[in-house]
C-alpha cells in the first residue's frame, strides 16, 4: 500500500518512539511454527463449529460470530464458501433484523454493511449484495440523528444517555466509503459519514461520540483507518495519524470502552493496514505472550477483555476459558495478518501467478497492442503477495480507467443511435453516416474487448446500428451513406478506427508509467 513519505515518516517516528525494548514479530505465520500450529487449531475450531454458531444461529451471538468469523474467512482467502455464508448472515442482520428494529440496529446495520462491503471488494458485487448495501445506505441516512451521529438503536431524536456512539458511525463510514469505491449508490449517506468523521475525529483518534473530537475509541479509529485504506484513500493524513495513535496505545487496548473483541480486532486490523512494522509491534507484544498460550484445549478463546484494572498477564489469562467463536475468529485473523497484505481490499491472489512486476510489464505490452481483455486480466493479477506492492494501486487505477473508457465508448456509440429519424433525405445522410461509423466502431470494440463484459454490449450496439441503417435505407433509398461504407480506414494501429478510444488509451497507458520500476 502506498503511503505519502510524510505519513511514512510519522509512522516510523511513532514506531521508534514506542519500541524501546519491545519484541517484534516480523515472521509470516507460515514460517513461525507457534503461529502456524495455533492457527491450525483455531481454524479447526471455527470450521467445526461453523454450522451451529454461524450458519444457523440467528440471534445476537450469531451476528457477532458471523461478523468476526466472516473476517477470518475473508482474510484466510481460501474459504470463499464460508465467507459467502457469513455475507448471507450479514444480509439477514441488515435487511431483516435492523429493518424490523429488533435491537442494536445501529450496530448491526453498520457492522453488516462493513463486512458486506469488504466482502464485495474481495469477491465482487452481486445483485443481492448490491441491494443490501444500498438499502443499508438508505437506512444509515434515515437513522442519522439530528446531532449528526448514530446511537446503539436509532433514537429518532429522542433523548438517551449519549447522543451517539462513534463505533456505529465509524462502521457506517468504512462501509459507505467502500460502497463508493465499489460504484454503488450511496445517496446522501456518503456526505453523512464524511461529515460525521470530520466532527468526531481529530486526525489521530476518535471520540466516544459527538461530545468531543478525538479520544480513546480505538475500534472507531480503526474503522476509519480501514475504511480509508479500503476505499483507496490511503494517502489521507488521517491514516498516518490514526495509525500512529493506535501504535502508541497498542499495549493498552484493554483500556478502551466496553467490548474487548471490538477493540482488539479493530486495532490489529488497522495496524496491519498501516505497515508491516506496525503489525510486527502488535504481534510481537500479544501473540506469543498473551494470546496463543491462553488458547483453550479445543483451540478457542474466551472474549477479549476490556479490564484495565488487572495486569495484562492476569487479564489475558481469562482467555483460557475459551468457547467464544468471535474471539477465536479474531485470534485466527490476527495470526493470518502476520502475512503481509492478508487483510486487503483486494481479491485473494491465485497460486502460481508470476510476480507482480512481470504481470504489470505484460499488461503494458498487451494494452499497447490492443489485447484489452488479456491486459485486464494481467492487471487484475497484481495483488498482495506478488511483491512490489507499490504496483497494486497503479494497476487498480489503470484497470479502472480501462473499464471506464470502454464503458464510456459503448455509451457514446449507443447515444448516437438514439437520435430521432430525420424527415428528409438530406438530413438523413449525415445521420446515416454517423450510425454507420458507430456500428463499425462498436464491432471493432467488440473484437478488442473480447472476453470482457463490455464486448457483449458493443456487439449489441453494432447490431442496433445495422438494423437502424437498414431501416433508414428502406425509408430514404439504398444508396444512403453508401459512399462511407468503408470508412473509417485503419492505419495499422489497433485503435485507429476510433479516435476517441485511441485518445483514451493514450491516457490509460500513461497511468502505467507511474508504475515503472
Amino acid at each position: 500500500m502506498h503511503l505519502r513519505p510524510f505519513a511514512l515518516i510519522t509512522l516510523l517516528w511513532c514506531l521508534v518512539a514506542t519500541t524501546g525494548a519491545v519484541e517484534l514479530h516480523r515472521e509470516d505465520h507460515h514460517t513461525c511454527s507457534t503461529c502456524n500450529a495455533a492457527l491450525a487449531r483455531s481454524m479447526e475450531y471455527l470450521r467445526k463449529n461453523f454450522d451451529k454458531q454461524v450458519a444457523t444461529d440467528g440471534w445476537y451471538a450469531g451476528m457477532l460470530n458471523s461478523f468476526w468469523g466472516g473476517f477470518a474467512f475473508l482474510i484466510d482467502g481460501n474459504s470463499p464458501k464460508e465467507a459467502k455464508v457469513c455475507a448471507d448472515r450479514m444480509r439477514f442482520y441488515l435487511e431483516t433484523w435492523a429493518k424490523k428494529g429488533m435491537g442494536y440496529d445501529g450496530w448491526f446495520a453498520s457492522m453488516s454493511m462493513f463486512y458486506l462491503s469488504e466482502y464485495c471488494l474481495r469477491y465482487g458485487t452481486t445483485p443481492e449484495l448490491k441491494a443490501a448495501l444500498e438499502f443499508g445506505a438508505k437506512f444509515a441516512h434515515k437513522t442519522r440523528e439530528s446531532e449528526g451521529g448514530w446511537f446503539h438503536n436509532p433514537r429518532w431524536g429522542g433523548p438517551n444517555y449519549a447522543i451517539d456512539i462513534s463505533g456505529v458511525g465509524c462502521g457506517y463510514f468504512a462501509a459507505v466509503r467502500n460502497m463508493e469505491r465499489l460504484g454503488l449508490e450511496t445517496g446522501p449517506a456518503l456526505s453523512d459519514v464524511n461529515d460525521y468523521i470530520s466532527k468526531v475525529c481529530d486526525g489521530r483518534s476518535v471520540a466516544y461520540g459527538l461530545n468531543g473530537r478525538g479520544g480513546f475509541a480505538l475500534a472507531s479509529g480503526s474503522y476509519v483507518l480501514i475504511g480509508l485504506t479500503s476505499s483507496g484513500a490511503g494517502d489521507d493524513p488521517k491514516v498516518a495519524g490514526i495509525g500512529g495513535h493506535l501504535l502508541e496505545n497498542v499495549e493498552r487496548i484493554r483500556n478502551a470502552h466496553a467490548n474487548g473483541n471490538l477493540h482488539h480486532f479493530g486495532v490489529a486490523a488497522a495496524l496491519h493496514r498501516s505497515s508491516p512494522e506496525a503489525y510486527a509491534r502488535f504481534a510481537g507484544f500479544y501473540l506469543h505472550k498473551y494470546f496463543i498460550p491462553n488458547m483453550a484445549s479445543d483451540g478457542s478463546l474466551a472474549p477479549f477483555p476490556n479490564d484495565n484494572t488487572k495486569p495484562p498477564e492476569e487479564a489475558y489469562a481469562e482467555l483460557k476459558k475459551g468457547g467464544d467463536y468471535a474471539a477465536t475468529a479474531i485470534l485466527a485473523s490476527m495470526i493470518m495478518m502476520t502475512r503481509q497484505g492478508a487483510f486487503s481490499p483486494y481479491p485473494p491472489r491465485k497460486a502460481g501467478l508470476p510476480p507482480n512486476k512481470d504481470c504489470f510489464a505484460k499488461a503494458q505490452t498487451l494494452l499497447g497492442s490492443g489485447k484489452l481483455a488479456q491486459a485486464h486480466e494481467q492487471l487484475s493479477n497484481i495483488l498482495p503477495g506478488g511483491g512490489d506492492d507499490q504496483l497494486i494501486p497503479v494497476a487498480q487505477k489503470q484497470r479502472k480507467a480501462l473499464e471506464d473508457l470502454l464503458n464510456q465508448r459503448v455509451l457514446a456509440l449507443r447515444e448516437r443511435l438514439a437520435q430521432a429519424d430525420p424527415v428528409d433525405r438530406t438530413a438523413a445522410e449525415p445521420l446515416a453516416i454517423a450510425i454507420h461509423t458507430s456500428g463499425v466502431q462498436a464491432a471493432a470494440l467488440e473484437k478488442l474487448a473480447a472476453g470482457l463484459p463490455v464486448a457483449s454490449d458493443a456487439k449489441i450496439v453494432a447490431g442496433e446500428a445495422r438494423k437502424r441503417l437498414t431501416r433508414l435505407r428502406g425509408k430514404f433509398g439504398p444508396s444512403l451513406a453508401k459512399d462511407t461504407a468503408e470508412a473509417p480506414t485503419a492505419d495499422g494501429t489497433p485503435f485507429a478506427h476510433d479516435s476517441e478510444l485511441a485518445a483514451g488509451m493514450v491516457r490509460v497507458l500513461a497511468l502505467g508509467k507511474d508504475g515503472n520500476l
Partner: protein
Amino acid sequence: MNPCPDRWLIAVMLVASTLVQASTADRSAIKERIDWCSTTISAVVGGQPISDRDLPGRVVLLIQNGLGADDAWNSFAVKTSMEFVGAVSAGGLVPLFVVDDAKANLNAWSSKNGAPTIGFVERQHLHIPGFIWGGAPRFVLVDADGVIISDMIIDGRDLSGGSRYHSRGILMKPDDVRRTVEGGPGPLVPPGSWNSCRAEAETLTAAAVTSKPLTPVLKALRERAKSGDKAEAQKLLDAVRQYVQRQLAVAERNRAGNPLLYKRVLERLQAQLGTDELGKPLDALVKSMTSDKSFQAELKAAEDFSLVIRTAAEISFGVGDPDAPRPADRIKAIRSGLQTVLSRHPKSQTARLAEIQRQQWDTWVAKAVEPLPW
C-alpha cells in the same frame, strides 16, 4: 499612526461579549414545548384518573420507568421520583408515571410511600405530539406554559442515584421543580397540617391534578366557615380563590400565543367551579372570548391544527421510524388536514406553525426508505 492596544482590546472584548450574549440568547430562545391541548390519554391504569383535559396550564412531571418484582429497583425508582414529586406540596404538579405495561402497578409505588396524586398510564395510551420515549428512568418537567424545563435520564446502574446523565435539557434538581411550580398555578392546598378540614384538603389536592368538580367541597367549606372551624375552612377557601386567580394568570399570558390553551383552562375552571361564586369572573371572560372575532378566528385555526397534530400523534407520524407501519388513510388525512389549515386560515399565526410543521414532516417523510403515502 499606531493603533492603541487598549482600544483594540476593548473592541475585541465588546465583540466577544456580544457574541456570547447572542449565543446565550439563541440558546434560551430554543425552548421545546409540549402541546398538551393535542395530547391524548386514552386510559390510565392506576392512581389518580388524570385525563388529557387536565394537563394544559398545569405543571406536569412525566416519569418514565418500570416498577416490578425487583424490590431494590422499586425503592430506587420511587425514592428518585419522590425527590422531584415531593419537592412541592401535593397537587402543585401533575405527576404522570408512564409504564410499559399494566403489570407495573400502583401497589409498588404506594408501598414505598409514593405520592397519592400520581396517575399511572401506559405508553400505548399516551400520545404526545412529537414526543419520543427514550431510556429510563426518565423525568420530563414541563411548566404551566408547556415549555420543557428539564428532560433527564438517570443511569440506573448505580441505585444510589449517583450516576446521572441529562439530555436535551438541564440536570434537574428539586429546586428546579419548586421554581417551576411557583411560576405556574402553584399548589391548590397550601402546605401545613389540616385537622377539621382534612378530608376537604385531600379532595382539593386531588382536584388540582384532575378536573373533578369543586362545588361540593366548596359548599362544605362554606358550611364549616359558618361554624366553629372557621379558620381552616376560610384558609382553604382563600387558597382556592388564589389558585383560580393564578390559573387565570397562566391562561391570560397564553391568550395571544396559544388561544387553545386559554380556552381549555377556562373550560376546566368552569367545569370545576360550576355555579359557585368563585366561578363568576369566568362568565365575563368566556363572554369576551366568544365575542372577540379575531380571537375566535385564531382559535378556530388552532383547533383545526390541533386536530391534525392529535391525529399525527396517535399514529406517531413525524416521529420515530418513518418506515414503521402506519395506516395510509390516516397519513393522507393528516396531509389533507394540514393543507386545509394552511388554505382556510392563511393569515393566522397557526398557519405559520402549520407551515413549519409541514416542512418538518416533509423532511421526515423524505428519510423513509419506502415511499410513504404523503
